[in-house]
């Protein structure tokens, strides 16, 4: 069972040890910019496609709108959706030059305001990012290395849902509850699913659904949260998974297990391991579906928008069973 976070569990030296143990720098050559997504090869992809047996399509994307989870913290805001042309204008006879009645619109949004991928250029460790590139390669013009466009055809593979909340018999884990390696293994085992090389592992805590049912996001974005324990970095490394995704803002437990630094698991898994992270996933429908049919593996496809030099991307992940 998940345990309560302990803020004095770790010190900076522990982060450094784990970062070295889980480092994949150079593993796929000095020019690599996609990290653990390299674990998905043609065989993994073909096997993933063979999991489409019922013809079901399920979306894991939270709708993008002004009711999203952002509060302005970290300068992130909810999407601002603005119309450039409307049907009301069209019906008022405004669309005669050129002569076509249409509607059109735009959005302004932080790339990580809702359901999203972190690019490998999102987090640094001691001034370096994934594969040893300098953090200073990410400047006001965007990321010259590890930008999201590098993975434009890479986020397709076998997805596995680990429904930790359901395994624990709760609607949602409480804030501050840390999911350990054994919690992940026991959840997988009780669901009858194995974790394989190249998998996209999706962990459900119930946090988002708790907020949605209350009609209040509270501290969802950047505040206290259930999430994976720091030690699971080792699990992700050993299992050679390609991505970790959750229904929380930041995957890892908050408050963190260290008092000295913010989001210690991030320090390790993104810049050193090269792991792609997905956050703010909407997992209610897939959670219910997997519980109903007992099938926790599927074809997963979540193409990022290839915004050149971006360090993240909003997405609408699709699961096919």
């Amino acid at each position, binding site marked *: 069972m998940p345990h309560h976070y302990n803020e004095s569990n770790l010190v900076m030296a522990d982060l450094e040890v784990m970062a070295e143990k889980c480092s994949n720098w150079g593993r796929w050559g000095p020019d690599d910019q996609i990290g653990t997504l390299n674990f998905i090869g043609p065989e993994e992809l073909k096997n993933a496609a063979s999991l*489409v047996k019922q*013809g079901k399509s399920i979306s894991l994307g939270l709708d993008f709108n002004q009711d999203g989870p952002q509060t302005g913290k970290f300068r992130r805001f909810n999407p601002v959706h603005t119309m450039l042309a409307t049907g009301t204008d069209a019906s008022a006879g405004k669309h005669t030059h050129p002569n076509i009645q249409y509607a059109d619109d735009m959005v302004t949004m932080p790339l990580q305001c809702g359901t999203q991928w972190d690019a490998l250029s999102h987090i640094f460790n001691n001034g370096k990012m994934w594969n040893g590139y*300098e953090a200073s390669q990410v400047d006001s013009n965007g990321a010259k290395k590890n930008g999201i466009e590098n993975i434009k055809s890479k986020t397709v593979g076998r997805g596995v849902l680990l429904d930790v909340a359901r395994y624990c018999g709760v609607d949602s884990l409480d804030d501050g509850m840390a999911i350990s390696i054994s919690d992940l293994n026991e959840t997988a085992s009780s669901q009858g699913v194995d974790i394989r090389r190249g998998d996209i592992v999706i962990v459900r805590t119930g946090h988002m659904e708790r907020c949605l049912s209350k009609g209040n996001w509270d501290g969802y974005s950047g505040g206290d949260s259930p999430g994976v324990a720091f030690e699971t970095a080792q699990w992700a490394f050993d299992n050679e998974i390609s991505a970790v995704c959750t229904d929380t803002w930041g995957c890892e437990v908050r408050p963190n297990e260290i008092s000295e630094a913010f989001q210690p698991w991030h320090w390790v898994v993104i810049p050193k391991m090269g792991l792609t992270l997905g956050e703010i996933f909407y997992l209610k429908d897939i959670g219910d579906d997997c519980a109903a049919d007992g099938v926790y593996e599927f074809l997963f496809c979540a193409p990022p928008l290839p915004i050149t030099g971006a360090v993240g991307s909003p997405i609408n992940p699709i699961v096919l069973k």
Partner: protein
Amino acid sequence: MHRYDDKEYQFDMDLILEKTERNKQWGKWGPDDEWGTQNHVTSEDRINAAKLVKKGQVFALGLNFDDDGPQNGLFGGRWNPIHTMLATGTDAVQGKQTVPGKKYASQYADDSVSLPLQCGTQWDALGHVFNQDKMWNGYDATLVGSNGAEKNAIHKMRDKMVGRGVLLDIARWAGVESLDDGTAIDADDLDACAKAQGVEVRRGDTVIYRTGHMERCLKAGEWGGYAGGEAPGVSFHTCDWMKDMEIAAICADTWGCEVIPNETDDVFQPWHWIVIPMIGITMGEIFYLKDLANDCADDGVYEFMFVAPPLPVTRGVGSPINPQAIK
């Protein structure tokens, strides 16, 4: 194929009104439908589409979104994406990202974008185009106000746009790198190209046709009139084919799918008037097809699994996308 100004193919408003009635399928999937031709895709079709994954290779059909995109203000005041950093690595290495109460500063980068939803590779939602004040399934155009689309919005399609994809490489079939601007593709051309490629178009397919227009611009390093100006594309007269083939979606490597200049002076984008509001077809535009087309020419396989989830922007009338063709 024919030139847009070929007298034999020119028409006026009367034909638009005739085709409006001929192709109207409002109510086909009930009075509350907001999915249109995406209804043609069944569970069985998705299962069969997944069986087309034989090599284990993914092709991204999304053009990169950046300030070198095709928009230049020709239509609708659209611009290229404005990508702005909210936090950078240069800040990080200089210790600017301190966190209150934490001994060690964070090191991260973050960013935002401002973009018209149809500035690059995109879906048109069914609420994008109207015909005589009505949109798909007979809903009033006035349901799309400054708050967005109350009906036929893109977020209603959150788990759609999945199925069998078929590439019709018209340019290659015609033996050219790119069709010329103003060249109109006929229904016969679509059929003949499919036949020559040895692929059959079926109910529920997403049909993607390649004109070479985007590649011509990319090669020239100049978009010119790509976004809203002259272009190759399907003839207005293909609108019956679009309905009768019962396809789920139609996509192209051009700005607006249909030939420009249009084959009529009476309205702008006459084919749009029919296919979106009357047929209820999902339309994809500004697709990057070079890599996929080269692969299809190479292995002779023009069918694949197609997955192109829209961003569920609530009440949006379009969405930027990065479609995936999986072979």
